[in-house]
């Protein structure tokens, strides 16, 4: 079936916000940190403070695309006993807060669960789809079939090193949006974003992507405003995880998270958008 015939929860939200003249704020938190109920409460608080789309991370033992902050949180989550199947109930609860929920997961936990079974259970929980940091479309045959069958978004990543041919093939394989890595590197807060981020967004659109969101290193409101001026969405991770890591109690962590989220949301809303072509 053509991807065009499948409704995309994420694309609908991005298009709605685009119609309102702004980019989306997409917030990442890992499932199970500080514990499963705490992570659900934090994600809901994040939506209430201005996040438009939630990226919920499945903790994995070998997160090669993640920097120290997310590694630290994920290691705690795994030590606390979080299970992969916990993600479905969490998605169901978070989705009720009104934001589409994408699940960010390394590939082995999905492969081990069963690709079609994972897609089926995620769809049943009301999830929007998957962001897959270590799965390129070339290896994603089974996931492409399963995501079509269950009507889920599949967000693949493009990088500054991607060739024009790969920008085109990755854009064609994606649904929801294409995730543009702002810089060469892993997740984490950066004071400056790669200068190539806006060029990558333009190149990815030119290669056929309808929606492109930018992540990796975005941590400050002014960076969010800058990215929001040219991208369809701003993806923030480590800067949202940090307050939860640094707080002594969940309540204090959520209070810190709410403050950071609100500032980022204000940054996104303040952006002067360049004309989309």
């Amino acid at each position, binding site marked *: 079936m053509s991807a065009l015939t499948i409704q995309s929860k994420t694309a609908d939200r991005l298009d709605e916000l685009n119609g309102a003249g702004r980019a989306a704020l997409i917030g990442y938190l890992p499932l199970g940190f500080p514990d499963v109920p705490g992570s659900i409460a934090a994600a809901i608080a994040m939506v209430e403070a201005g996040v438009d789309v939630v990226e919920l991370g499945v903790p994995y033992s070998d997160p090669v695309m993640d920097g120290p902050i997310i590694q630290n949180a994920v*290691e705690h989550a795994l030590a606390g006993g979080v299970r992969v199947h916990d993600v479905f109930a969490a998605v169901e609860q978070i989705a009720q807060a009104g934001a589409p929920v994408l699940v960010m997961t390394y590939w082995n936990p999905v492969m*081990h669960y069963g690709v079609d079974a994972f897609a089926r259970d995620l769809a049943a929980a009301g999830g929007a789809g998957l962001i897959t940091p270590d*799965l390129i479309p070339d290896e994603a045959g089974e996931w492409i079939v399963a995501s079509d069958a269950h009507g889920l978004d599949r967000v693949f990543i493009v*990088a500054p*090193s991607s060739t024009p041919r790969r920008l085109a093939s990755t854009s064609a394989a994606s649904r929801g949006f294409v995730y543009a890595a702002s810089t060469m*590197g892993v997740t984490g807060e950066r004071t400056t974003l790669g200068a190539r981020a806006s060029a990558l967004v333009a190149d990815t659109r030119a290669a056929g992507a309808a929606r492109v969101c930018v992540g990796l290193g975005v941590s400050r409101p002014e960076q969010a405003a800058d990215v929001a001026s040219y991208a369809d969405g701003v993806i923030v991770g480590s800067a949202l995880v940090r307050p939860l890591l640094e707080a002594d109690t969940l309540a204090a962590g959520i209070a810190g998270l709410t403050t950071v989220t609100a500032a980022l949301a204000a940054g996104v809303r303040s952006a002067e958008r360049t004309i989309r072509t």
Partner: protein
Amino acid sequence: MEQSSKSARESLATGAGPYFGEFGGRFVPEALIAALDELDTEFQKAKVDPEFLEELARLHRTYTGRPSIITEVPRFAAHAGGARIILKREDLNHTGSHKINNVLGQALLTKRIGKTRVIAETGAGQHGVATATAAALFDLECVVYMGEEDTRRQALNVARMRLLGAEVIPVTTGSRTLKDAINEALRDWVTNVETTNYVFGTVAGPHPFPGMVRDLQRIIGVEARQQVLDLVGRLPDVVAACVGGGSNAIGIFHAFLDDPEVRLVGLEAGGDGVETGRHAATITAGSPGVLHGARSFLLQDDDGQTIESHSISAGLDYPGVGPEHSFLASIHRAEYRPITDAQAMDAFRLLCRTEGIIPAIESAHALAGAIDLGRELGPDAVILVNLSGRGDKDVETAAAWFGVLDAEPGVVGQDAVVGQEAGDTL
């Protein structure tokens, strides 16, 4: 002569990746794809370029000391049912193991691509030492990631790498061993790929590493096959090698893949015993999944989380294995057996005492396997063992295991390792 009747289509020796049967592939971040493609393209060109091949051959001859010899070990073999046991002496290579074969090829490739910095992961330190050596020789900046636990177990190799001018970064995440060193090296590579080549140490990882490292290690088996024919007048009955990621094993197996009468046996690290759960016997006790960029067997829990491996041998202490091994196991062309720490150390001591050769503890797993195979097959059997490395780096571990340190008389096992830490700083 035995080759002439086989069609090329039936050959097992030509598999180049990205897939070996259902194993292999490239399960990595998109950011690395351009570099992997570049490496693949350049290696495909280099391996048929007479200039590259001559330069590599010259380095083998004048730097590594190839061809490595074979040594028949009758006093050792007397404990193995009287079978003839022949060792392929990769331990005699410059830097002390087979790792140099791969590293010289990849260092030449790094120069061809025009990159100036190399990174590597290391477990026992042998691959790190080999990479640091090649980096010194080729004037490349070198950073080696090594699990903190391994920097303690292999303090001598940490010192060697630093003497050679490499930066050694202890990795403090996860199990603090080889698995986490690879994670950290991959993070470095994603960040610095424009200037940096990842000199991967084994036949695991994303395409093109499994096929490329295999091609660079094939020389072990190519030499050994002819050497055994010259010595014995026939092919060996069994070729045995230890398997962590599997590069020395693939290196010696490959020349025999199309000799169906030759059994290929990989010896995995059985740690405290496979039944205890504390081991690194990936094919014996694991299941298919994705780790470090390839689909292959791995040790994983019910959620697909990687399980930490355990072995006295840092070089085998890895919960994954190269995809070509998983393929060879799946088609029953090679068989894989576990060897416990205790079995390996018994074989280690036996080779020291009977032949005056101190093997790497990794290679001692292959020796222990050869003892079992000799007893199973009897006195007419010819067993070729890849002695992949020498044991200098393991002297402290072995001394602690056998309680032979004067400072700690009669101490056996872990307690004696404490004494190592004081000398660990450099």
